């Protein structure tokens, strides 16, 4: 997927004035936030379940090498094959080799964010292989030639009228804006592709080390179709997705689906182990798993390791006041919202995504809703420090921080300067105690008034209280 994180500010500003996008984001927030809250009331002891989920993911990361090797052994034992890919280029090379080996002309895909990372659709198409996205949202995006704007609801930025227009252009059928009719139309257009595809590509929500299984969580059934009907199934996923046992999966599922869409369980949870057995009536003849590193292993053992616990539920973005206002495209890559603001700089380079660690008010909602307790604001703060150390922030910002740091280390000067500032601000405020326009703080005062301080500093008040 093309990287455009560098245009963050520009896109964010544009999106803030896009009325239809704002309506769509409002709807997302209304549905997903409410549904999650309602679904979690079903859990008897949420803190305990969350601690257990966190422990499972952290345990798997702590012993990642051994679990990956165990997973590989089990895949081989069930007749499958594991491929290791250092980066996107290697994923594409492996896929192309597999496509050649099995004479693949058509690929049916279910939703996979890792495949978006690697840009496999463009690569396959460039090599003369037809690729069909079969998740309804991803199919719509493929027709529109747009990237996803949410990891669970990829087409959240479009309304039904947009989709109706798109379908008329591509399907040449009478226009309908009935959602059920649109879904039926997509089903009828896609069914022949499931039946004629040579290869099915899926992601994996989890890999189970105990059994060598790839597990996928879906609602539409397309994930089941692409892993059942084509001759070849390839699951592409990150190395961090491995968990020890089937029991661990059960714990994580209880939180994943509730956090993502507010469902107690998704319609389908498929645990896929190896290829079709000798006497089976259906299933793929070949089973391959591509384990993708693409920058993940460099997070291990660092302050950012906790990010690898992520189970991609999307709750952090659904609850983020920044995401809720600017939408997913502003983040400029595969992963939006707080989790994307941590992942993207790490996977594509901090200098390519310098606004993302700052796209947060640090309100902490993301960390509060994260089912695997990832301290997202802490990780973002860490990236901000790293940016400053690498000289990636504007000179004026660095200069201001240096000035502030000097004052903060000289208490007398600090007291004097803050007393002066408090009085000055008080003096320029209007009768309601508000400041309409403030030099160097246009970002604040362009949109709203700045409340002036009372004129006395905390130190003044404290000194008076303790003396009386």
């Amino acid at each position: 997927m093309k990287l455009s994180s560098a245009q963050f500010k520009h896109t964010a500003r544009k999106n803030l004035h896009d009325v239809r996008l704002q309506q769509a984001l409002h709807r997302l927030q209304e549905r997903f936030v409410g549904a999650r809250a309602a679904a979690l009331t079903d859990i008897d002891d949420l803190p305990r379940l969350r601690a257990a989920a966190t422990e499972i993911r952290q345990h798997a990361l702590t012993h990642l090498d051994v679990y990956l090797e165990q997973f590989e052994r089990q895949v081989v034992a069930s007749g499958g094959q594991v491929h290791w890919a250092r980066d996107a280029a290697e994923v594409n090379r492996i896929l192309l080799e597999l496509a050649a080996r099995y004479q693949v002309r058509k690929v049916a895909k279910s939703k996979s964010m890792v495949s978006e990372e690697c840009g496999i659709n463009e690569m396959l198409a460039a090599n003369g292989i037809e690729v069909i996205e079969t998740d309804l949202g991803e199919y719509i995006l493929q027709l529109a030639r747009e990237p996803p704007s949410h990891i669970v609801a990829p087409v959240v930025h479009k309304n039904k009228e947009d989709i109706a227009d798109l379908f008329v252009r591509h399907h040449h059928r009478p226009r309908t804006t009935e959602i059920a009719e649109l879904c039926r139309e997509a089903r009828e257009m896609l069914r022949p592709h499931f039946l004629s595809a040579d290869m099915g590509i899926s992601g994996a929500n989890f890999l189970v080390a105990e059994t060598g299984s790839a597990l996928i969580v879906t609602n539409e059934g397309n994930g089941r179709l692409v892993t059942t009907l084509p001759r070849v199934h390839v699951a592409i996923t990150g190395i961090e997705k491995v968990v020890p046992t089937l029991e661990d999966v059960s714990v994580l599922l209880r939180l994943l689906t509730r956090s993502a869409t507010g469902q107690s369980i998704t319609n389908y949870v498929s645990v896929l182990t190896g290829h079709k057995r000798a006497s089976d009536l259906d299933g793929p003849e070949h089973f391959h798993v591509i384990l993708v590193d693409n920058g993940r292993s460099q997070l291990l053992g660092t302050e950012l390791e906790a990010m690898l616990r992520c189970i991609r539920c999307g709750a952090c973005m659904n609850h983020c006041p920044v995401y809720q206002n600017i939408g997913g495209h502003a983040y400029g890559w595969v992963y939006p919202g707080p989790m994307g603001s941590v992942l993207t700089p790490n996977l594509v380079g901090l200098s390519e995504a310098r606004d993302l660690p700052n796209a947060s008010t640090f309100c902490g909602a993301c960390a509060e809703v994260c089912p695997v307790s990832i301290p997202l604001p802490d990780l973002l703060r860490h990236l901000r420090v790293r940016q400053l150390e690498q000289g990636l922030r504007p000179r004026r910002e660095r200069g201001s921080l240096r000035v502030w740091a000097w004052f903060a280390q000289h208490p007398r000067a600090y007291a004097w300067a803050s007393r002066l500032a408090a009085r000055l601000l008080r003096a320029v405020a209007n009768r309601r105690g508000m400041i309409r326009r403030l030099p160097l703080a246009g970002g604040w005062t362009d949109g709203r008034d700045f409340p002036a301080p009372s004129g006395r500093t905390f130190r003044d008040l404290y000194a008076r209280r303790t003396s009386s």
Partner: protein
Amino acid sequence: MNSRETILARVRRARTSSDAVIATRLREHPRGPLPNMSEDLLTRFRERAARLASDVQGPLSAEQVPTAVANYLRERSLPVRAVRWPSIGSFEWGTVGMSVEARAARADDMVGITGAFCAIAETGTLMLLSGADTPAATSLLPETHVALVPISRIVARMEDGWDLLRMEHGLPPRAVNFVSGPSRTADIEQTVTLGAHGPYRVCIVLVADAVTGIARPVVG
């Protein structure tokens, strides 16, 4: 160094793994916190399955099953031709005017009849295993999925399903599918629509008697 070795070396640089800890975890596969369930399993299963938009019938005796299935289909003006898991035996489909074939499902099949390995009361979910006599596509390609589930195979939670799987099969088959109602999508305006790429409706017929072939796949 090939990619496998490179990635594992990068991972190992940051890890201190203890094989003993891992071997124990894999062998004992400890359960996490389990949800409490006050109701009995049958009540819980029926209530949860209905909540996920499955149509639940019964419990019925084995003889009542064909009539119930035929009525379900006719009430909805659905065809009474169906494909079934070859594992399902001993039902008199012909006497209720149904034509039921035992084979793998095809794209033009409108009704698929399966059993279930077990059913999970916690969420109202069916657990299906692929196998020689229990193909995976029967519950997927047709627009209507009818599942026959003996009430003796309703277990409390997913973890009980894993235990049954280990006990009765050892290793998992190619596909373990948990099915919780008709396929659905909320991709367009976050509006839930039933019937995406899989079935539009799931009819669960609870069966009171033990019937061979509907719960455990008969390995052929």
